[in-house]
């Protein structure tokens, strides 16, 4: 077991550290499950596991750079699995990772209500950014259902409520 990064900032005690295995396998598992579960759940797959994992690690690491890079990786990976332009999800999740990490510096990320609200708001923001990129930046036709996005945001919040405490157990404690 080894930590991902050495603690070298003034927020040593606040930054969470995880085993390398968790830091690599959890995002990968999220991507695989996101690709596989919709086949099982059909149209009731109201969640975005890569976004939840991005938000979790961004909040935990409290590093906007790491949040940005992780968000970009997750988003680009999701785009690559779809048939849409590669980059739309990437930009949305890059912003989500950056914002989550920036907010994580200022607030108590242990609070369940804050986690729930953050996931809900960041999910909606991601959807909004995705829509903006498609309709305005790329000027492409895209049917949109805000109800589905609302359901997805709620689903993300509920999943985060159960997943975050589970992932908390994997962190390295001094």
């Amino acid at each position, binding site marked *: 077991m080894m930590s991902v990064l050495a603690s070298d900032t003034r927020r040593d005690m606040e930054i969470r550290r995880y085993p390398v295995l968790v830091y690599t396998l959890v995002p990968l598992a999220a991507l695989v499950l996101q*690709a596989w579960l919709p*086949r099982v759940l059909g149209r009731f797959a109201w969640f975005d596991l890569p976004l939840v994992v991005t938000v979790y690690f961004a909040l935990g690491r409290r590093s906007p750079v790491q949040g*940005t890079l992780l968000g970009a990786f997750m988003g680009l990976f999701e785009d690559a*699995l779809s048939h849409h332009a590669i980059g739309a999800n990437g930009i949305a999740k890059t912003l989500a990772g950056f914002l989550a990490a920036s907010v994580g510096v200022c607030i108590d990320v242990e609070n369940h209500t804050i986690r729930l609200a953050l996931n809900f708001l960041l999910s909606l923001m991601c959807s909004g950014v995705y829509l903006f990129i498609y309709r305005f930046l790329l000027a492409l036709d895209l049917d*949109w259902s805000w109800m589905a996005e609302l359901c997805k945001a709620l689903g993300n919040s509920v999943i985060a409520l159960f997943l975050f405490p589970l992932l908390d157990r994997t962190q390295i404690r001094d």
Partner: protein
Amino acid sequence: MEPFFVRYRNLLVLLLVLLAQIIGLAVQVRRTAAGRNLLDTQDGPGVRLIRLWAEGIVSPPERLIHGSKIGSVQIWQDYLDLRHVREQNQDLQKTIDRLRLEQASLLEDARQGQRLQALLDFQQKYVYKTVAAQAIGASGSDQSRILYLDKGKDFGLEPDMAVIVADGIVGKVREVFPHTAQVLLISDQTSGAGVILETTRTRGILRGNAAGQVLIVGILADQRIQPGEKVLTAGGDQIFPRGLPVGVVEKVVRDPDRDAFIDIFVKPAAHLDRLDEVVVITSTLPRFSTEQEKDLATSETLKGPEVEQAKAQKKAAEIMAERLPSLIDPKLPLDQQPLHDTSLPTSVPHVPQAIHPDRFTPGSAIMPDLSNTKGKEGTDSATPAKPAGQKTAAADPSSPGLAAKKGSATNLAAPPAKTEHKPGEPLRRNP
């Protein structure tokens, strides 16, 4: 300069990452001559490489999950849950027999159809070669309704091949990787398939919407289009062969953007949310495949004599119908033939009661005086008609209609056996 980069490191990294992705997006979009932006239907080499890597990372775990799921399900289905299998087997055997009978009777029509098509130079494509594949994954996004198959270029799959299941069409192959393939479902917004309504023969383009529903767009308002009508592939898109089931019309709504047009929501015949095994049509040719030919030959061998017998019986019935036109009406189905018509009266109608009875009245005890009837011939039609009717019926006893008339005439002619009649009283009907 160093303090600036250190101070704004986070923002600079964010901007760099965003800028790189925006440039990447711009490369993938092209502007058409009409001024509209479109995504490239075929990915460029760079984009394809990224997709290949992503698919290469995700598909092994997906195969593993799918394989373990199939294994456990198969153990349950093949070894543990075998109730009612014998009954099902018997039912299936009966179904096979029935289908073979139908197939043998349709064989000649099919061959004739092929000959005529060849004569008319009309290239009706038949499904010639297929590859069965398992759906192992999806894109994971509502905006992209994509399915991943466990077979790719190694099994001869190519872009734009039709993907179907037994119930109906599923989509088309979009991208092919060495060991997997990407299928664009018909419920995706960017999909398109030429379809035709079975009854009204209205043609349209099938596509999906944001909610994953399937609809036919750009159709002029038509009152004849009703829910429940079947939708089939039209065959004009060069992807799906003609006549494959697509689904049924679920509802018809007015196009919100164009007044004169309607949108037809279709309930897909294939369960797009629960796809497991699919079939990719890898080849279509203007003739039957070897397997189909073999199957037809088997049907002909097994059920040919029965079909011939059924045809002979049908022919005999037709000959009978020609000879006895009153027995069988060729325009009516069997259960509505006159002989089977129970609504017709079976007994002879009663003679109306005479208002002014005389000696010619049926049932009258007074013998008619023929010398007095000479001047009345032609005015009283009932009396002279009786012998004529009797004569005709006797001449052709095989005719049931005439036989009925004969019976009627006999009844009319028969004297009342035990009727008491008092002079001056009106005659009573003889039951």
